[in-house]
């Protein structure tokens, strides 16, 4: 009993620490500065996080636009395998999801960034970030969707076959529509993961603070900003970083609550 209190205590502690530091930013500097200052330049007391928030939202959106279709397609492809072949296929996706993010970032840095550079400089950009980030999200979407495909009742599939549906129609008109909620859960989990991911975006996005004009421009995300500046941040700058962490924490908590609701509806 006492020990399992740790779980609650830790969550409470995390919130208390992050938010108390964030609130001290609110009282010392004021939260309005986060949206009204002309730039992010903490050493001179300028704290505009809007370009960084935009960076986070854009990389996440781009990653989801790639990962959504690809993840769904891999889940459908998984249905084509039976018995042990599907187990192997699953295991491969799990391995992709289990590769350390710093290794994926390293690969993105040495492979994807030069490829993007061939199209347009500087290479380390929103586009590279979106592509590499989507790799982190695809296994989540594919595995969750595949599981919910498998829970479609056998009788519905057989009915489809009995009505003379082609294999493709059975998948597209019966299995996929019935698994809407599972797919949505996978996508929400994926968004949560993409927003919180640090190493990949830190390594391939270029980390320039700006609202990008094209997808070939470098961006900086909330997570990368914390990782880059925490090492030398002091006083108000430090609490500004905690304030951005609080923003992240709120995003993620909302996604957890939404996905909980979805998964309890499935059951």
């Amino acid at each position, binding site marked *: 009993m006492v020990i399992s209190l*740790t779980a609650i205590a830790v969550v409470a502690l995390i919130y208390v620490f992050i938010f108390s530091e964030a609130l001290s930013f609110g009282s010392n500097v004021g939260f309005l500065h986060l949206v009204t200052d002309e730039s992010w330049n903490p050493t001179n007391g300028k704290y505009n996080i809007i370009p960084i928030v935009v960076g986070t939202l854009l990389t996440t959106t781009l990653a989801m636009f790639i990962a959504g279709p690809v993840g769904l*397609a891999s889940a459908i492809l998984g249905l084509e395998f039976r018995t042990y072949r599907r187990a192997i296929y699953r295991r491969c996706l799990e391995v992709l999801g289990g590769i*350390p993010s*710093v290794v994926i970032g390293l690969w993105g840095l040495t492979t994807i960034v030069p490829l993007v550079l061939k199209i347009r400089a500087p290479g380390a950009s929103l586009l590279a970030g979106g592509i590499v980030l989507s790799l982190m999200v695809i296994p989540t979407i594919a595995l969750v969707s595949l599981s919910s495909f498998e829970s479609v009742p056998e009788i519905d599939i057989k009915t489809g076959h009995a009505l003379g549906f082609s294999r493709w129609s059975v998948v597209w008109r019966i299995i996929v529509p019935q698994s809407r909620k599972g797919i949505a859960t996978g996508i929400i989990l994926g968004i949560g993961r993409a927003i*919180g991911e640090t*190493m990949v975006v830190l*390594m391939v996005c270029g980390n320039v603070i700006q609202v990008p004009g094209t997808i070939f421009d470098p961006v900086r995300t909330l*997570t990368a900003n914390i990782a880059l500046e925490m090492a030398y941040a002091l006083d108000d700058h430090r609490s500004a970083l905690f304030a951005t962490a609080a923003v992240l924490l709120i995003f993620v908590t909302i996604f957890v609550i939404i996905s909980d609701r979805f998964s309890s509806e499935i059951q």
Partner: protein
Amino acid sequence: MKVLLSKIAVLGLGGLPILVLAWILIDISYSGLSEISWSFLTEVPTNAGRSGGISSVIVSTLWVVSIATMISTFIGLATAIILSELSAKWEKFCLIVRWSLDILAGVPSIVFGLFGNAFFSQVCGFGFSILSGALTLTVMMLPFFIRVAEEGLRQVPNVYRKTGYALGMRPLSVTFKIVVPQASKAIVIGLVLSLARAMSETAALLFTSGYVERWPESVFDSGRVLSIHIYDLAMNVPGGIERANASALVLIGLLIAINLIIYSIADFWQRKRVV
């Protein structure tokens, strides 16, 4: 025609993740293998990692991960037992614990890093050390380990528990002598999976276990783990990419080795218990 096109789309897009997986593994092995040698594994890094080896980095990694694993085994198992064995009795309490674990599972690792820096490094006074890094990782590992362990404990048939009670065993001995051994495989697998996650973690350790690449003397020393070494070589050290690839290969090798070893132990252990 439309169907054919859709089929091509599914095959092309759906096959992509597997192809990329192969691409990543081949790419990293190709450029990393040439750097790996006996001295690479046994020497201390010099010249910011451009020369020398990664022995002290491997040692720090093992320290951080094994401390984190030990603490989370203890706390995690206790929590999982309460969640599975006593959920009927303490319904409200278990609901709150589960809810907190769900939130904990979703917190981004960089936020764990900030929290670890503020709490373990500063409030607890551990500074940048292996211990603060390990404690931060413990917090990260718990939700996942507890979920898997609880699932395993729940799968032990209720008849086993009732048989225990019928034989006059006390509730505690039913739990520890019957239920936990039966679920040992799930528990060990949960542990390995969360250990692998801990080993791949970077962002949470940036501001807790630190960057120092020396051989760690005690758990209060700062120690650089493999993933941070990879990050540092790739981003901050010009000409460090080959070494980064080699370290990445070592990291992946360690992950595979841990998986294999502990899975076989779990198998062996369960067979012995049943006989």
